[in-house]
């Protein structure tokens, strides 16, 4: 209980509350601009978060991502295009509802259910994470090695349509994670005598390059296309009626639970949570025929799920220090830079901070409702800001942010290099998220692998002879070999008739 009060004291600081408000406004703004994702909003905020206290930094990230997640629904409603990929599942429903004059059932519903989803996810996080942490305190480097490897493997499998392209993006990330001083011997690797590379490739610069600069390159090449103008007016009050909210209670609760669980899985984030919840809501809906053509049920289920997934993704991040998606990868990076190693010991050593995180989650989702209403009204103006004004400002934020973190010009070269690389990758449908996870988790995998081998005197069997390590290890091997085995079986079956003829 004292830890809860300590946590509350940490949050109720003027600087924390002020940064929450500013990052909320920023998150709403970025989320509303089609094509700019919640991850990009967070990546641009990291240099600012970096100068704040750990709690203020996390509050910034949590608030900003929750806001951006909802704000993605605003262009979906007015322009029929999702502001962030997590709103894609129910974009048509939103737009058709607004066209029918039912703003309250579209944006209002998504606003209230986003807030409820975030709160539900936070409650599951509050009760689930400490239980998992008690269990994880006995984890050793063997378990962490497998956990990180499993996370990487799953993330790569679900990212993008083509698993092979995901693996390639991952290996680039893994390569970047090797640059710098060797963890065990202290020998320099791939530094080419450049002092700036001795501590490795700067994580924040890579984030900004991969998620912000690359997007600007993409925009620059397509800017001749006409800018869509919202033509729809807000005719109804922006909040849903209480009875229509009550009708959706089952979709909201189900969406919240599904969203949190999917968010907690490594690799599967808010986008997938929204799609899965949308599909499940359709199965249980009273009017499944309306899905895709203006269904308030679909909006309620999926809008809850994507915000709940944000909360859920903090479970593996805090308990194991293993991020599930690119936003929590940033969280881990910020925590480590702040001298806090996420893991089960955080719950022992920094209980007040963990409680502060829960409180921030609840608070951020509560202020989402009033700020969201404001955003619905202002949104139509914001989404028609001209690219020629918007994108140079974002470029400035990218460059200033990357420089400000270490006062070092060298970081700007990394931003540029990664920005060009990721732009080329994305133009060819290579996902960027595995690259970031590879950079962050690559070090975790390598360090735990080396530590384990040193502890085991080079004996590989120790990776399997602890019960949890064994289970995790076998799971990882299954994830790796399942596609290969099914592929071979398919190939053999299709070859069978030919073999019979010869």
């Amino acid at each position, binding site marked *: 209980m004292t830890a809860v009060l300590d946590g509350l004291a940490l949050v109720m600081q003027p600087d924390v509350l002020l940064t929450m408000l500013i990052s909320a406004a920023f998150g709403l703004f970025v989320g509303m601009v089609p094509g700019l994702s919640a991850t990009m909003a967070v990546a641009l905020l990291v240099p600012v978060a970096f100068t704040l206290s750990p709690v203020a930094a996390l509050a910034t990230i949590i608030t900003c991502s929750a806001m951006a997640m909802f704000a993605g629904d605003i262009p979906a409603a007015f322009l029929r295009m999702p502001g962030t990929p997590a709103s894609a599942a129910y974009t048509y429903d939103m737009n058709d509802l607004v066209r029918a004059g039912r703003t309250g059932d579209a944006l209002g519903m998504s606003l209230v259910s986003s807030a409820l989803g975030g709160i539900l996810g936070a409650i599951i996080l509050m009760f689930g994470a400490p239980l998992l942490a008690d269990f994880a305190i006995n984890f*050793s480097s063997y378990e962490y090695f497998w956990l990180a490897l499993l996370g990487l493997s799953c993330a790569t499998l679900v990212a993008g349509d083509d698993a092979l392209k995901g693996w390639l993006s991952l290996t680039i990330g893994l390569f970047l994670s090797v640059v710098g001083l060797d963890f065990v011997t202290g020998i320099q690797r791939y530094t080419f005598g450049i002092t700036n590379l*001795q501590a490795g490739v700067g994580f924040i610069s890579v984030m900004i390059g991969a998620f912000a600069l690359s997007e600007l390159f993409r925009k620059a090449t397509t800017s001749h296309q006409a800018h869509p103008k919202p033509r729809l007016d807000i005719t109804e009050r922006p909040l849903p009626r209480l009875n229509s909210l009550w009708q959706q209670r089952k979709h909201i609760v189900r969406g919240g639970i599904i969203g949190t669980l999917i968010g907690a899985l490594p690799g599967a984030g808010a986008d997938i949570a929204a799609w899965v919840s949308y599909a499940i809501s359709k199965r249980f809906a009273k009017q499944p025929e309306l899905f895709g053509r203006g269904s308030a049920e679909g909006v309620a289920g999926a809008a809850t799920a994507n915000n709940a997934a944000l909360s859920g993704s903090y479970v593996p991040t805090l308990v194991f220090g293993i991020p599930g998606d690119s936003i929590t990868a940033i969280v881990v990076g910020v925590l480590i830079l702040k001298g806090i190693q996420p893991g089960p010991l955080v719950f022992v050593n920094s209980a007040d901070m963990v409680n502060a995180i829960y409180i921030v989650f609840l608070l951020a989702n509560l202020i989402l409702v009033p700020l969201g209403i404001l955003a619905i009204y202002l949104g139509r103006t914001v989404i028609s800001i001209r690219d020629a004004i918007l994108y140079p400002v974002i470029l400035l934020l990218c460059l200033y942010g990357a420089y400000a973190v270490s006062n070092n010009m060298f970081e700007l070269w990394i931003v540029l290099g990664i920005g060009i690389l990721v732009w080329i990758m994305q133009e060819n449908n290579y996902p960027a998220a595995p690259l970031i996870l590879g950079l962050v988790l690559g070090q975790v995998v390598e360090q735990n692998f080396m530590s384990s081998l040193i*502890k085991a005197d080079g004996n590989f069997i120790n990776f399997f002879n602890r019960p949890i390590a064994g289970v995790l290890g076998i799971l990882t091997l299954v994830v790796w070999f399942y596609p290969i085995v099914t592929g071979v079986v398919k190939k053999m079956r299709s070859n069978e008739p030919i073999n019979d003829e010869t």
Partner: protein
Amino acid sequence: MLTRLATTAATIFVLSGGAALAEYPEKPISLIVPWAAGGGTDAVARVLAEGLKEELGVAVNVVNKPGGGSVIGHSEMLAANPDGYTLGFGTAELATFYWAGQANTKATDFNPIALVNFDSGAFHVSTSSKWSDVKAALEDIKAQPAGTYKVTGTGTGAAYHLAFAGFLKANGIDPLAVTLVPSQGAAPGFQELAAGGVDVVLSSLPEGTAMMQAGKSKPLAVFSEERIAAFPDVPTAGEATGTPFAGGTWRGVVGPQELDPEVKKTLEEAVLKVANSEDFKTFMNDKGFGVRVLDSAAFGGFLAEQHTQVGVIMNDLGIAQRKE
């Protein structure tokens, strides 16, 4: 007339006297911190800068220059304009760059102003460990083949690793007899100790407080000449083994070599005054940092000693890129 002349003369005298006093410092001073904002070194530097501002009457701005495992920030301190307006907050790592082949700067290349902090390493074991004191542990380590026991809590070549190796050597044991399992700081090291993967964690005493209170670890000895006030029950290395040994990590204010002696004197006095103040001591104690204050001359001797000691022990460990 005379009085007016006298007043003018007095005015001129006062003004010129004032000007001479205002010679240094007359504009804000930058204090380079070679580690990221928000870390332990940054926190100490900011409190020190706050105190220096009061003493010197000008703003002292902390400038974080992280990167390259602190090589970048430390190199910048040496390359700074020696006008006294750019100083550095040096940390224990600066003595290792030369030997590790990360840079050509030796610890003796830095101009010592004052040392303000020293955190002694401590020998922590699990509460279920068979060793009840450090003497028994050392005998056991000596008796078993090399590599039987593992130590963690620190990175390869980091200050606590070198302190641990130095401690073994001082007690007549090969520094490689206990294998290092590198870790990113004390917290993952203590978790490893609780999970039973290693036998010893080497970290400062305050870093182990949470695990001691949870009844999962106990400190057997601290590598300092005197007991640490906050942990009166933990014996020093000398008391526990009969061989006095001090080792750990440290932080101090340094500058470029060509610093004007007058300017250096002013800075040294200001830093010593802040480091000896109650406010600074209270902050350090609350945050778990040890206070050890050395003036310029003593700090210079300390740096020279560090340079040779680190060279010897890194060569013993086989992680040096240069011979002594």
